[in-house]
Protein backbone atom coordinates (compact mmCIF):
# COMPACT_ATOMS: atom_id res chain seq x y z
CA UNK A 1 0.00 0.00 0.00
CA UNK A 2 1.36 3.36 -0.87
CA UNK A 3 0.74 5.98 1.70
CA UNK A 4 0.14 9.50 0.54
CA UNK A 5 0.84 10.98 3.89
CA UNK A 6 2.69 14.19 3.33
CA UNK A 7 0.36 16.68 1.70
CA UNK A 8 2.13 17.51 -1.53
CA UNK A 9 -0.47 19.86 -2.91
CA UNK A 10 -2.92 22.16 -1.17
CA UNK A 11 -6.37 20.66 -0.52
CA UNK A 12 -8.48 20.38 -3.64
CA UNK A 13 -11.11 23.04 -4.06
CA UNK A 14 -14.79 22.22 -3.62
CA UNK A 15 -15.30 22.52 -7.33
CA UNK A 16 -12.73 19.85 -8.19
CA UNK A 17 -14.12 17.61 -5.50
CA UNK A 18 -17.64 17.92 -6.86
CA UNK A 19 -16.41 17.16 -10.34
CA UNK A 20 -14.77 14.02 -9.05
CA UNK A 21 -17.96 12.98 -7.39
CA UNK A 22 -19.84 13.53 -10.61
CA UNK A 23 -17.46 11.34 -12.60
CA UNK A 24 -17.51 8.64 -9.93
CA UNK A 25 -21.28 8.78 -9.94
CA UNK A 26 -21.39 8.48 -13.72
CA UNK A 27 -19.08 5.46 -13.71
CA UNK A 28 -20.92 3.82 -10.86
CA UNK A 29 -24.41 4.32 -12.20
CA UNK A 30 -23.44 4.47 -15.88
CA UNK A 31 -25.42 1.36 -16.66
CA UNK A 32 -28.61 2.77 -15.21
CA UNK A 33 -28.05 5.97 -17.19
CA UNK A 34 -27.37 3.99 -20.36
CA UNK A 35 -30.49 1.93 -19.81
CA UNK A 36 -32.52 5.11 -19.38
CA UNK A 37 -31.05 6.72 -22.49
CA UNK A 38 -31.65 3.61 -24.55
CA UNK A 39 -35.26 3.33 -23.43
CA UNK A 40 -35.96 6.99 -24.20
CA UNK A 41 -34.20 6.86 -27.60
CA UNK A 42 -35.94 3.64 -28.58
CA UNK A 43 -39.34 4.93 -27.57
CA UNK A 44 -38.90 7.68 -30.17
CA UNK A 45 -37.62 5.24 -32.77
CA UNK A 46 -40.39 2.69 -32.39
CA UNK A 47 -43.96 3.21 -31.19
CA UNK A 48 -44.10 -0.42 -30.06
CA UNK A 49 -41.11 -0.18 -27.76
CA UNK A 50 -42.47 1.52 -24.70
CA UNK A 51 -45.76 -0.34 -24.52
CA UNK A 52 -46.79 -2.27 -21.44
CA UNK A 53 -46.94 -5.41 -23.54
CA UNK A 54 -43.43 -5.03 -24.88
CA UNK A 55 -41.92 -4.12 -21.53
CA UNK A 56 -43.51 -7.20 -19.98
CA UNK A 57 -42.21 -9.24 -22.87
CA UNK A 58 -38.67 -8.01 -22.30
CA UNK A 59 -38.93 -8.63 -18.57
CA UNK A 60 -40.16 -12.14 -19.24
CA UNK A 61 -37.23 -12.78 -21.57
CA UNK A 62 -34.85 -11.44 -18.97
CA UNK A 63 -36.37 -13.39 -16.06
CA UNK A 64 -34.39 -16.67 -16.28
CA UNK A 65 -31.21 -14.66 -16.85
CA UNK A 66 -31.94 -12.60 -13.75
CA UNK A 67 -32.57 -15.74 -11.71
CA UNK A 68 -29.24 -17.29 -12.68
CA UNK A 69 -27.31 -14.00 -12.65
CA UNK A 70 -28.26 -13.44 -9.01
CA UNK A 71 -26.35 -16.63 -8.25
CA UNK A 72 -23.53 -15.58 -10.55
CA UNK A 73 -23.25 -12.30 -8.64
CA UNK A 74 -22.35 -14.23 -5.50
CA UNK A 75 -19.86 -16.41 -7.38
CA UNK A 76 -18.19 -13.37 -8.89
CA UNK A 77 -18.19 -11.64 -5.50
CA UNK A 78 -15.80 -14.40 -4.41
CA UNK A 79 -13.65 -13.70 -7.50
CA UNK A 80 -14.98 -16.85 -9.19
CA UNK A 81 -16.95 -17.52 -12.35
CA UNK A 82 -19.30 -20.29 -13.47
CA UNK A 83 -19.34 -21.06 -17.18
CA UNK A 84 -21.39 -24.22 -16.77
CA UNK A 85 -24.81 -22.66 -16.03
CA UNK A 86 -26.04 -22.85 -19.63
CA UNK A 87 -25.21 -26.55 -19.83
CA UNK A 88 -26.82 -27.15 -16.46
CA UNK A 89 -30.00 -25.55 -17.82
CA UNK A 90 -29.95 -28.11 -20.67
CA UNK A 91 -29.37 -31.03 -18.33
CA UNK A 92 -32.21 -29.91 -16.05
CA UNK A 93 -34.48 -29.38 -19.05
CA UNK A 94 -33.82 -32.92 -20.28
CA UNK A 95 -34.13 -34.43 -16.81
CA UNK A 96 -37.51 -32.77 -16.22
CA UNK A 97 -39.09 -34.64 -19.15
CA UNK A 98 -37.16 -37.83 -18.37
CA UNK A 99 -38.44 -37.85 -14.81
CA UNK A 100 -42.00 -37.09 -15.90
CA UNK A 101 -41.82 -39.92 -18.40
CA UNK A 102 -40.85 -42.25 -15.57
CA UNK A 103 -44.22 -41.38 -14.07
CA UNK A 104 -42.88 -39.31 -11.19
CA UNK A 105 -45.19 -36.61 -9.80
CA UNK A 106 -44.38 -32.89 -10.07
CA UNK A 107 -43.61 -32.54 -6.38
CA UNK A 108 -40.82 -35.10 -6.79
CA UNK A 109 -39.51 -34.03 -10.18
CA UNK A 110 -38.94 -30.36 -9.36
CA UNK A 111 -37.08 -30.88 -6.06
CA UNK A 112 -35.08 -33.65 -7.75
CA UNK A 113 -33.83 -31.41 -10.56
CA UNK A 114 -33.11 -28.60 -8.10
CA UNK A 115 -31.03 -31.12 -6.19
CA UNK A 116 -29.20 -32.05 -9.39
CA UNK A 117 -28.41 -28.36 -9.86
CA UNK A 118 -27.18 -28.07 -6.32
CA UNK A 119 -24.96 -31.14 -6.67
CA UNK A 120 -23.49 -29.96 -9.97
CA UNK A 121 -22.72 -26.62 -8.32
CA UNK A 122 -21.19 -28.29 -5.29
CA UNK A 123 -19.02 -30.35 -7.63
CA UNK A 124 -17.73 -27.14 -9.20
CA UNK A 125 -17.25 -25.66 -5.74
CA UNK A 126 -15.29 -28.65 -4.46
CA UNK A 127 -12.75 -28.35 -7.25
CA UNK A 128 -12.49 -24.60 -6.85
CA UNK A 129 -11.98 -25.10 -3.14
CA UNK A 130 -9.01 -27.33 -3.92
CA UNK A 131 -7.43 -24.33 -5.60
CA UNK A 132 -8.16 -25.11 -9.26
CA UNK A 133 -9.01 -22.04 -11.38
CA UNK A 134 -12.80 -21.62 -11.56
CA UNK A 135 -12.58 -20.76 -15.24
CA UNK A 136 -11.11 -24.14 -16.13
CA UNK A 137 -13.18 -26.18 -13.68
CA UNK A 138 -16.49 -24.78 -14.91
CA UNK A 139 -15.39 -24.90 -18.55
CA UNK A 140 -14.83 -28.64 -18.08
CA UNK A 141 -18.25 -28.85 -16.43
CA UNK A 142 -19.77 -26.90 -19.34
CA UNK A 143 -18.92 -29.63 -21.79
CA UNK A 144 -19.50 -32.50 -19.32
CA UNK A 145 -23.03 -31.44 -18.41
CA UNK A 146 -24.04 -30.67 -21.99
CA UNK A 147 -22.69 -34.09 -22.96
CA UNK A 148 -24.74 -35.81 -20.26
CA UNK A 149 -27.82 -33.89 -21.44
CA UNK A 150 -27.32 -35.26 -24.94
CA UNK A 151 -26.70 -38.78 -23.65
CA UNK A 152 -29.82 -38.74 -21.46
CA UNK A 153 -32.07 -37.33 -24.21
CA UNK A 154 -30.40 -39.10 -27.08
CA UNK A 155 -30.30 -35.69 -28.71
CA UNK A 156 -34.07 -35.28 -28.97
CA UNK A 157 -36.30 -32.56 -27.60
CA UNK A 158 -39.37 -33.99 -25.85
CA UNK A 159 -42.57 -32.05 -25.11
CA UNK A 160 -43.54 -31.25 -21.53
CA UNK A 161 -47.18 -31.63 -20.59
CA UNK A 162 -47.06 -30.94 -16.87
CA UNK A 163 -49.41 -28.03 -16.13
CA UNK A 164 -47.35 -26.65 -13.29
CA UNK A 165 -44.11 -26.54 -15.27
CA UNK A 166 -45.91 -24.88 -18.17
CA UNK A 167 -47.41 -22.39 -15.75
CA UNK A 168 -43.93 -21.61 -14.36
CA UNK A 169 -42.74 -20.81 -17.87
CA UNK A 170 -45.80 -19.21 -19.48
CA UNK A 171 -48.44 -18.62 -16.85
CA UNK A 172 -49.46 -15.46 -15.12
CA UNK A 173 -50.03 -14.30 -11.60
CA UNK A 174 -52.56 -11.50 -12.03
CA UNK A 175 -51.14 -9.17 -14.67
CA UNK A 176 -47.59 -10.48 -14.36
CA UNK A 177 -45.99 -13.48 -16.00
CA UNK A 178 -44.88 -16.15 -13.56
CA UNK A 179 -41.19 -15.96 -14.56
CA UNK A 180 -41.18 -12.25 -13.76
CA UNK A 181 -42.61 -12.88 -10.31
CA UNK A 182 -40.05 -15.61 -9.71
CA UNK A 183 -37.21 -13.35 -10.86
CA UNK A 184 -38.38 -10.57 -8.54
CA UNK A 185 -38.50 -12.95 -5.59
CA UNK A 186 -35.04 -14.34 -6.33
CA UNK A 187 -33.60 -10.86 -6.83
CA UNK A 188 -35.02 -9.58 -3.54
CA UNK A 189 -33.78 -12.69 -1.75
CA UNK A 190 -30.34 -12.26 -3.28
CA UNK A 191 -30.23 -8.60 -2.34
CA UNK A 192 -31.13 -9.34 1.28
CA UNK A 193 -28.52 -12.09 1.56
CA UNK A 194 -25.78 -10.10 -0.15
CA UNK A 195 -26.23 -6.87 1.72
CA UNK A 196 -27.68 -7.86 5.08
CA UNK A 197 -26.25 -11.19 6.14
CA UNK A 198 -22.89 -12.57 7.18
CA UNK A 199 -22.85 -14.89 4.22
CA UNK A 200 -23.03 -12.05 1.70
CA UNK A 201 -20.33 -10.13 3.53
CA UNK A 202 -18.10 -13.20 3.67
CA UNK A 203 -18.52 -13.81 -0.05
CA UNK A 204 -17.27 -10.26 -0.66
CA UNK A 205 -14.44 -10.68 1.84
CA UNK A 206 -13.27 -13.93 0.24
CA UNK A 207 -13.26 -12.29 -3.18
CA UNK A 208 -11.64 -9.09 -1.92
CA UNK A 209 -8.73 -10.73 -0.17
CA UNK A 210 -8.84 -14.39 0.63
CA UNK A 211 -5.90 -14.46 3.07
CA UNK A 212 -7.39 -11.64 5.11
CA UNK A 213 -10.74 -13.42 5.24
CA UNK A 214 -9.02 -16.58 6.40
CA UNK A 215 -6.98 -14.73 9.02
CA UNK A 216 -10.24 -13.37 10.45
CA UNK A 217 -11.60 -16.88 10.91
CA UNK A 218 -13.87 -17.06 7.86
CA UNK A 219 -14.24 -20.57 6.47
CA UNK A 220 -13.20 -19.69 2.94
CA UNK A 221 -13.76 -23.18 1.52
CA UNK A 222 -17.30 -23.34 2.81
CA UNK A 223 -18.16 -19.93 1.37
CA UNK A 224 -16.89 -21.01 -2.06
CA UNK A 225 -18.78 -24.29 -1.90
CA UNK A 226 -21.95 -22.43 -0.99
CA UNK A 227 -21.81 -19.84 -3.80
CA UNK A 228 -21.27 -22.52 -6.47
CA UNK A 229 -23.98 -24.70 -4.95
CA UNK A 230 -26.29 -21.68 -4.94
CA UNK A 231 -25.72 -20.74 -8.56
CA UNK A 232 -26.22 -24.41 -9.50
CA UNK A 233 -29.59 -24.47 -7.81
CA UNK A 234 -30.63 -21.17 -9.39
CA UNK A 235 -29.51 -22.44 -12.79
CA UNK A 236 -31.78 -25.45 -12.22
CA UNK A 237 -34.66 -23.11 -11.37
CA UNK A 238 -33.89 -21.10 -14.50
CA UNK A 239 -33.83 -24.37 -16.42
CA UNK A 240 -37.29 -25.32 -15.16
CA UNK A 241 -38.68 -21.93 -16.18
CA UNK A 242 -37.10 -22.14 -19.64
CA UNK A 243 -38.41 -25.67 -20.10
CA UNK A 244 -41.90 -24.45 -19.27
CA UNK A 245 -41.55 -21.51 -21.63
CA UNK A 246 -40.28 -23.61 -24.54
CA UNK A 247 -42.76 -26.38 -23.76
CA UNK A 248 -40.14 -29.07 -24.16
CA UNK A 249 -37.05 -30.55 -22.58
CA UNK A 250 -34.16 -30.05 -24.95
CA UNK A 251 -30.43 -30.76 -24.76
CA UNK A 252 -29.97 -27.60 -26.83
CA UNK A 253 -31.59 -25.39 -24.19
CA UNK A 254 -29.47 -22.64 -22.72
CA UNK A 255 -26.72 -22.63 -25.34
CA UNK A 256 -24.55 -19.55 -24.68
CA UNK A 257 -26.82 -18.60 -21.81
CA UNK A 258 -23.74 -18.34 -19.57
CA UNK A 259 -22.60 -15.40 -21.68
CA UNK A 260 -25.82 -13.49 -21.10
CA UNK A 261 -25.66 -14.24 -17.40
CA UNK A 262 -22.04 -13.15 -17.07
CA UNK A 263 -22.62 -10.08 -19.24
CA UNK A 264 -25.56 -9.04 -17.06
CA UNK A 265 -23.50 -9.44 -13.90
CA UNK A 266 -20.43 -7.65 -15.22
CA UNK A 267 -22.51 -4.87 -16.77
CA UNK A 268 -24.13 -4.41 -13.40
CA UNK A 269 -20.80 -3.46 -11.86
CA UNK A 270 -19.88 -6.69 -10.09
CA UNK A 271 -16.10 -6.87 -10.21
CA UNK A 272 -14.42 -9.62 -12.22
CA UNK A 273 -11.75 -9.62 -9.53
CA UNK A 274 -14.16 -10.14 -6.66
CA UNK A 275 -14.98 -8.12 -3.57
CA UNK A 276 -17.53 -5.83 -5.23
CA UNK A 277 -21.03 -6.95 -6.20
CA UNK A 278 -24.55 -5.56 -6.42
CA UNK A 279 -27.82 -7.32 -7.15
CA UNK A 280 -29.56 -4.18 -8.40
CA UNK A 281 -26.79 -3.76 -10.95
CA UNK A 282 -27.15 -7.35 -12.08
CA UNK A 283 -30.91 -6.95 -12.60
CA UNK A 284 -30.36 -3.73 -14.53
CA UNK A 285 -27.66 -5.47 -16.58
CA UNK A 286 -30.00 -8.29 -17.55
CA UNK A 287 -32.74 -5.80 -18.48
CA UNK A 288 -30.27 -3.71 -20.47
CA UNK A 289 -29.12 -6.63 -22.61
CA UNK A 290 -32.69 -7.67 -23.31
CA UNK A 291 -33.92 -4.14 -24.04
CA UNK A 292 -31.07 -3.64 -26.51
CA UNK A 293 -31.88 -6.91 -28.23
CA UNK A 294 -35.57 -6.18 -28.27
CA UNK A 295 -35.02 -2.66 -29.60
CA UNK A 296 -32.77 -3.88 -32.41
CA UNK A 297 -35.35 -6.51 -33.30
CA UNK A 298 -38.11 -3.90 -33.41
CA UNK A 299 -35.96 -1.77 -35.70
CA UNK A 300 -35.69 -4.76 -38.02
CA UNK A 301 -31.95 -5.22 -37.59
CA UNK A 302 -30.60 -8.50 -38.92
CA UNK A 303 -30.54 -11.00 -35.99
CA UNK A 304 -26.93 -11.88 -36.73
CA UNK A 305 -25.99 -8.28 -36.10
CA UNK A 306 -27.94 -8.43 -32.86
CA UNK A 307 -25.60 -11.21 -31.79
CA UNK A 308 -22.62 -9.06 -32.70
CA UNK A 309 -24.08 -6.23 -30.65
CA UNK A 310 -24.44 -8.51 -27.61
CA UNK A 311 -20.78 -9.47 -27.89
CA UNK A 312 -19.70 -5.86 -28.15
CA UNK A 313 -21.77 -4.94 -25.11
CA UNK A 314 -20.00 -7.65 -23.11
CA UNK A 315 -16.64 -6.37 -24.28
CA UNK A 316 -17.56 -2.83 -23.32
CA UNK A 317 -18.80 -4.02 -19.95
CA UNK A 318 -15.52 -5.78 -19.23
CA UNK A 319 -13.57 -2.73 -20.32
CA UNK A 320 -15.57 -0.50 -17.98
CA UNK A 321 -15.35 -3.08 -15.24
CA UNK A 322 -11.58 -3.37 -15.29
CA UNK A 323 -9.48 -0.63 -16.84
CA UNK A 324 -11.78 2.35 -16.56
CA UNK A 325 -13.02 1.49 -13.09
CA UNK A 326 -9.52 1.06 -11.74
CA UNK A 327 -8.27 4.28 -13.33
CA UNK A 328 -11.18 6.25 -12.02
CA UNK A 329 -10.96 4.93 -8.48
CA UNK A 330 -7.23 5.59 -8.37
CA UNK A 331 -7.86 9.09 -9.59
CA UNK A 332 -10.61 9.59 -7.02
CA UNK A 333 -8.34 8.21 -4.33
CA UNK A 334 -5.72 10.86 -4.94
CA UNK A 335 -8.48 13.39 -4.51
CA UNK A 336 -9.53 11.87 -1.21
CA UNK A 337 -5.99 11.89 0.12
CA UNK A 338 -5.83 15.61 -0.59
CA UNK A 339 -8.94 16.08 1.47
CA UNK A 340 -7.96 14.02 4.44
CA UNK A 341 -4.30 14.54 5.01
CA UNK A 342 -4.62 17.75 7.00
CA UNK A 343 -6.61 15.78 9.59
CA UNK A 344 -3.96 13.11 10.08
CA UNK A 345 -1.13 15.47 10.87
CA UNK A 346 -0.93 16.37 14.54
Amino acid sequence: MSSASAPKSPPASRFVFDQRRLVLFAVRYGLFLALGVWVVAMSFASEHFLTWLNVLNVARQAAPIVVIAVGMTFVMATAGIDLSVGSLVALVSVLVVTFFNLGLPTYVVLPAVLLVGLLAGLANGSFVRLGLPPFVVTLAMLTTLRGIAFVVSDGYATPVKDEFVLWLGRGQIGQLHTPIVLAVIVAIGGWVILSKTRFGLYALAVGGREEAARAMGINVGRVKLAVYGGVGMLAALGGIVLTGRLGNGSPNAGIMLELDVIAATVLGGTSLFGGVATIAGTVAGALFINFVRNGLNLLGVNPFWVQVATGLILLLAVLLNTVVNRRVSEWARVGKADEQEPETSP
Partner: protein
Amino acid sequence: MSDHLVEMRLISKSFGAVVALRQVSFALDAGEVVGLVGDNAAGKSTLMKILSGAYTPDSGEILLDGHPCHFDSPMAARAAGIEMVYQDFALVPELSVTQNIFLGRELLHRGLRSRFLDKRTMSERATHLIERLGLRVPPGDTPVRAISGGQQQAVAIARATAFDARLVIMDEPTANLSAAAIGKVREAIGNLKSHGVAVVIISHRIEDILETADRAVVLKRGQVVGERRVADTGSDEILHMIVAGQDPRRAANNGPSKSA
Protein backbone atom coordinates in the same frame (compact mmCIF):
# COMPACT_ATOMS: atom_id res chain seq x y z
CA MET B 1 2.84 -19.56 40.27
CA SER B 2 3.69 -16.54 38.22
CA ASP B 3 1.37 -13.59 38.06
CA HIS B 4 2.32 -12.81 34.49
CA LEU B 5 -0.46 -12.22 31.99
CA VAL B 6 1.28 -14.46 29.50
CA GLU B 7 4.28 -16.68 29.84
CA MET B 8 5.91 -18.63 27.01
CA ARG B 9 8.29 -21.33 28.23
CA LEU B 10 11.11 -22.96 26.24
CA ILE B 11 9.38 -22.55 22.90
CA SER B 12 11.06 -24.18 19.88
CA LYS B 13 9.94 -24.10 16.29
CA SER B 14 11.52 -25.30 13.03
CA PHE B 15 10.42 -24.97 9.45
CA GLY B 16 11.99 -27.96 7.74
CA ALA B 17 15.71 -27.53 8.22
CA VAL B 18 15.38 -23.92 9.39
CA VAL B 19 15.36 -23.57 13.15
CA ALA B 20 13.32 -20.41 13.73
CA LEU B 21 13.20 -20.55 17.55
CA ARG B 22 15.37 -22.42 20.08
CA GLN B 23 13.97 -22.75 23.58
CA VAL B 24 12.77 -19.19 23.83
CA SER B 25 11.13 -18.01 27.03
CA PHE B 26 9.17 -14.80 27.16
CA ALA B 27 6.82 -13.28 29.71
CA LEU B 28 4.59 -10.27 29.83
CA ASP B 29 2.47 -8.58 32.52
CA ALA B 30 -0.95 -6.99 32.16
CA GLY B 31 -0.73 -3.46 30.83
CA GLU B 32 2.94 -3.84 29.98
CA VAL B 33 4.36 -2.71 26.64
CA VAL B 34 7.24 -4.86 25.41
CA GLY B 35 9.36 -4.21 22.34
CA LEU B 36 10.65 -7.25 20.49
CA VAL B 37 13.71 -6.36 18.43
CA GLY B 38 16.28 -8.18 16.34
CA ASP B 39 17.66 -8.65 12.86
CA ASN B 40 15.68 -9.98 9.97
CA ALA B 41 14.92 -13.69 10.40
CA ALA B 42 15.67 -13.55 14.11
CA GLY B 43 12.34 -15.27 14.80
CA LYS B 44 10.31 -12.32 16.09
CA SER B 45 7.30 -12.86 13.86
CA THR B 46 7.37 -16.61 14.44
CA LEU B 47 7.38 -16.20 18.22
CA MET B 48 4.41 -13.88 18.10
CA LYS B 49 2.53 -15.98 15.55
CA ILE B 50 2.81 -18.84 17.98
CA LEU B 51 1.38 -16.66 20.73
CA SER B 52 -1.48 -15.54 18.47
CA GLY B 53 -2.35 -19.07 17.37
CA ALA B 54 -1.19 -18.78 13.76
CA TYR B 55 1.57 -21.39 14.28
CA THR B 56 1.81 -24.21 16.81
CA PRO B 57 5.17 -24.66 18.56
CA ASP B 58 7.18 -27.88 18.19
CA SER B 59 7.80 -27.86 21.92
CA GLY B 60 7.35 -25.60 24.92
CA GLU B 61 4.26 -24.29 26.64
CA ILE B 62 2.17 -21.17 26.88
CA LEU B 63 0.59 -20.04 30.14
CA LEU B 64 -2.22 -17.51 30.27
CA ASP B 65 -2.93 -16.20 33.79
CA GLY B 66 -0.73 -19.06 34.96
CA HIS B 67 -2.85 -21.73 33.23
CA PRO B 68 -1.45 -23.79 30.35
CA CYS B 69 -3.31 -23.28 27.10
CA HIS B 70 -3.09 -24.29 23.46
CA PHE B 71 -4.01 -21.95 20.67
CA ASP B 72 -4.56 -24.05 17.59
CA SER B 73 -5.95 -21.16 15.55
CA PRO B 74 -5.98 -17.36 15.60
CA MET B 75 -9.64 -17.60 16.58
CA ALA B 76 -8.77 -19.56 19.72
CA ALA B 77 -6.19 -16.97 20.73
CA ARG B 78 -8.60 -14.15 19.94
CA ALA B 79 -11.25 -15.77 22.11
CA ALA B 80 -8.71 -15.66 24.95
CA GLY B 81 -8.12 -11.94 24.37
CA ILE B 82 -4.91 -12.14 22.33
CA GLU B 83 -5.02 -10.17 19.08
CA MET B 84 -2.42 -9.70 16.40
CA VAL B 85 -2.10 -6.82 13.97
CA TYR B 86 -0.47 -8.46 10.96
CA GLN B 87 2.46 -6.90 9.17
CA ASP B 88 0.34 -6.42 6.05
CA PHE B 89 -2.71 -5.42 8.15
CA ALA B 90 -4.83 -8.34 6.77
CA LEU B 91 -7.58 -5.97 5.67
CA VAL B 92 -9.96 -6.53 2.75
CA PRO B 93 -9.47 -3.48 0.50
CA GLU B 94 -12.97 -3.59 -0.99
CA LEU B 95 -14.76 -3.72 2.34
CA SER B 96 -15.47 -0.61 4.38
CA VAL B 97 -13.63 0.50 7.50
CA THR B 98 -16.47 -0.73 9.71
CA GLN B 99 -16.85 -4.02 7.85
CA ASN B 100 -13.15 -4.69 8.27
CA ILE B 101 -13.17 -3.90 11.96
CA PHE B 102 -15.96 -6.40 12.60
CA LEU B 103 -14.98 -8.97 9.97
CA GLY B 104 -15.53 -12.47 11.34
CA ARG B 105 -17.21 -11.10 14.47
CA GLU B 106 -20.15 -9.16 13.10
CA LEU B 107 -22.87 -7.96 15.42
CA LEU B 108 -26.33 -9.24 14.59
CA HIS B 109 -29.77 -7.93 15.46
CA ARG B 110 -31.65 -9.57 18.29
CA GLY B 111 -34.90 -11.49 18.13
CA LEU B 112 -36.71 -11.94 14.83
CA ARG B 113 -33.99 -10.29 12.77
CA SER B 114 -31.19 -12.27 14.38
CA ARG B 115 -29.88 -13.47 11.02
CA PHE B 116 -29.24 -9.93 9.86
CA LEU B 117 -26.28 -7.65 10.42
CA ASP B 118 -26.75 -4.82 12.88
CA LYS B 119 -24.98 -2.26 10.70
CA ARG B 120 -25.92 0.77 12.75
CA THR B 121 -24.52 -0.54 16.01
CA MET B 122 -21.33 -1.71 14.30
CA SER B 123 -20.85 1.67 12.72
CA GLU B 124 -21.38 3.50 16.03
CA ARG B 125 -19.00 1.19 17.86
CA ALA B 126 -16.35 1.56 15.17
CA THR B 127 -16.46 5.34 15.49
CA HIS B 128 -16.26 5.14 19.25
CA LEU B 129 -13.38 2.68 19.14
CA ILE B 130 -11.30 4.77 16.79
CA GLU B 131 -11.89 7.86 18.91
CA ARG B 132 -10.87 6.03 22.07
CA LEU B 133 -7.55 5.17 20.49
CA GLY B 134 -7.06 8.79 19.48
CA LEU B 135 -6.93 7.81 15.82
CA ARG B 136 -8.41 9.65 12.87
CA VAL B 137 -10.01 7.62 10.12
CA PRO B 138 -12.47 8.64 7.40
CA PRO B 139 -16.16 7.74 7.85
CA GLY B 140 -16.80 4.06 8.54
CA ASP B 141 -18.42 3.35 5.18
CA THR B 142 -15.31 4.33 3.19
CA PRO B 143 -13.68 1.35 1.48
CA VAL B 144 -10.29 0.55 2.94
CA ARG B 145 -8.60 0.71 -0.45
CA ALA B 146 -9.43 4.40 -0.60
CA ILE B 147 -7.57 5.36 2.58
CA SER B 148 -3.88 5.95 3.24
CA GLY B 149 -1.43 3.44 4.71
CA GLY B 150 -1.46 5.16 8.09
CA GLN B 151 -5.23 5.08 8.20
CA GLN B 152 -5.21 1.40 7.27
CA GLN B 153 -2.88 0.72 10.16
CA ALA B 154 -5.31 2.61 12.38
CA VAL B 155 -8.16 0.39 11.18
CA ALA B 156 -6.11 -2.74 11.86
CA ILE B 157 -5.32 -1.52 15.38
CA ALA B 158 -8.95 -0.60 16.01
CA ARG B 159 -9.98 -4.07 14.91
CA ALA B 160 -7.50 -5.69 17.28
CA THR B 161 -8.95 -3.73 20.18
CA ALA B 162 -12.63 -4.04 19.27
CA PHE B 163 -13.39 -7.01 21.50
CA ASP B 164 -11.83 -6.43 24.91
CA ALA B 165 -8.36 -7.58 23.98
CA ARG B 166 -5.96 -8.17 26.87
CA LEU B 167 -2.89 -8.36 24.68
CA VAL B 168 -2.35 -6.75 21.30
CA ILE B 169 0.62 -7.86 19.23
CA MET B 170 1.78 -5.49 16.49
CA ASP B 171 4.17 -6.71 13.83
CA GLU B 172 6.12 -3.75 12.42
CA PRO B 173 3.26 -1.31 13.03
CA THR B 174 5.22 1.68 11.76
CA ALA B 175 6.76 0.19 8.63
CA ASN B 176 5.95 2.22 5.50
CA LEU B 177 4.21 4.97 7.45
CA SER B 178 4.77 8.70 7.31
CA ALA B 179 6.14 10.55 10.32
CA ALA B 180 2.69 11.85 11.25
CA ALA B 181 1.16 8.38 11.03
CA ILE B 182 3.97 6.91 13.15
CA GLY B 183 3.18 9.49 15.82
CA LYS B 184 -0.46 8.40 15.76
CA VAL B 185 0.40 4.73 16.12
CA ARG B 186 2.67 5.45 19.08
CA GLU B 187 -0.09 7.51 20.66
CA ALA B 188 -2.54 4.65 20.15
CA ILE B 189 -0.14 2.26 21.90
CA GLY B 190 -0.02 4.65 24.85
CA ASN B 191 -3.82 4.75 24.94
CA LEU B 192 -4.01 0.98 24.95
CA LYS B 193 -1.59 0.81 27.85
CA SER B 194 -3.62 3.32 29.80
CA HIS B 195 -6.67 1.09 29.30
CA GLY B 196 -4.73 -1.79 30.87
CA VAL B 197 -4.06 -3.63 27.62
CA ALA B 198 -0.67 -5.28 27.20
CA VAL B 199 1.14 -4.64 23.93
CA VAL B 200 4.00 -6.36 22.12
CA ILE B 201 5.58 -4.29 19.37
CA ILE B 202 7.88 -5.90 16.86
CA SER B 203 9.85 -3.11 15.27
CA HIS B 204 12.95 -2.31 13.33
CA ARG B 205 12.79 1.22 14.64
CA ILE B 206 14.49 1.38 17.99
CA GLU B 207 12.91 4.80 18.57
CA ASP B 208 9.48 3.12 18.48
CA ILE B 209 10.58 0.87 21.30
CA LEU B 210 12.31 3.55 23.34
CA GLU B 211 9.34 5.86 23.07
CA THR B 212 6.51 3.42 23.77
CA ALA B 213 7.82 0.31 25.51
CA ASP B 214 8.53 -0.46 29.16
CA ARG B 215 10.92 -3.25 28.27
CA ALA B 216 12.88 -4.42 25.25
CA VAL B 217 13.65 -8.05 24.43
CA VAL B 218 16.36 -8.81 21.87
CA LEU B 219 16.23 -11.90 19.67
CA LYS B 220 18.96 -13.22 17.43
CA ARG B 221 18.94 -16.42 15.40
CA GLY B 222 16.01 -17.83 17.30
CA GLN B 223 17.32 -17.12 20.79
CA VAL B 224 16.78 -14.43 23.38
CA VAL B 225 20.01 -12.49 23.60
CA GLY B 226 19.03 -10.20 26.42
CA GLU B 227 16.47 -7.78 27.75
CA ARG B 228 16.41 -4.34 29.32
CA ARG B 229 14.04 -2.00 31.01
CA VAL B 230 13.78 0.87 28.57
CA ALA B 231 14.32 3.43 31.33
CA ASP B 232 17.60 1.72 32.01
CA THR B 233 19.15 1.60 28.54
CA GLY B 234 19.61 3.50 25.31
CA SER B 235 19.56 2.88 21.59
CA ASP B 236 23.32 2.27 21.49
CA GLU B 237 23.17 -0.63 23.90
CA ILE B 238 20.14 -2.24 22.24
CA LEU B 239 21.71 -1.82 18.83
CA HIS B 240 24.86 -3.42 20.13
CA MET B 241 22.90 -6.44 21.40
CA ILE B 242 21.09 -6.80 18.07
CA VAL B 243 24.30 -6.71 16.10
CA ALA B 244 26.67 -8.59 18.40
CA GLY B 245 24.05 -11.12 19.47
CA GLN B 246 25.13 -10.98 23.12
CA ASP B 247 24.35 -9.12 26.26
CA PRO B 248 27.38 -6.95 27.11
CA ARG B 249 26.48 -6.92 30.83
CA ARG B 250 26.45 -10.70 30.93
CA ALA B 251 29.07 -11.47 28.32
CA ALA B 252 31.78 -11.54 30.96
CA ASN B 253 30.05 -14.38 32.83
CA ASN B 254 28.92 -16.44 29.83
CA GLY B 255 31.95 -16.27 27.61
CA PRO B 256 31.75 -15.40 23.92
CA SER B 257 28.49 -16.20 22.22
CA LYS B 258 28.43 -18.80 19.47
CA SER B 259 27.02 -16.38 17.01
CA ALA B 260 29.59 -13.63 17.54
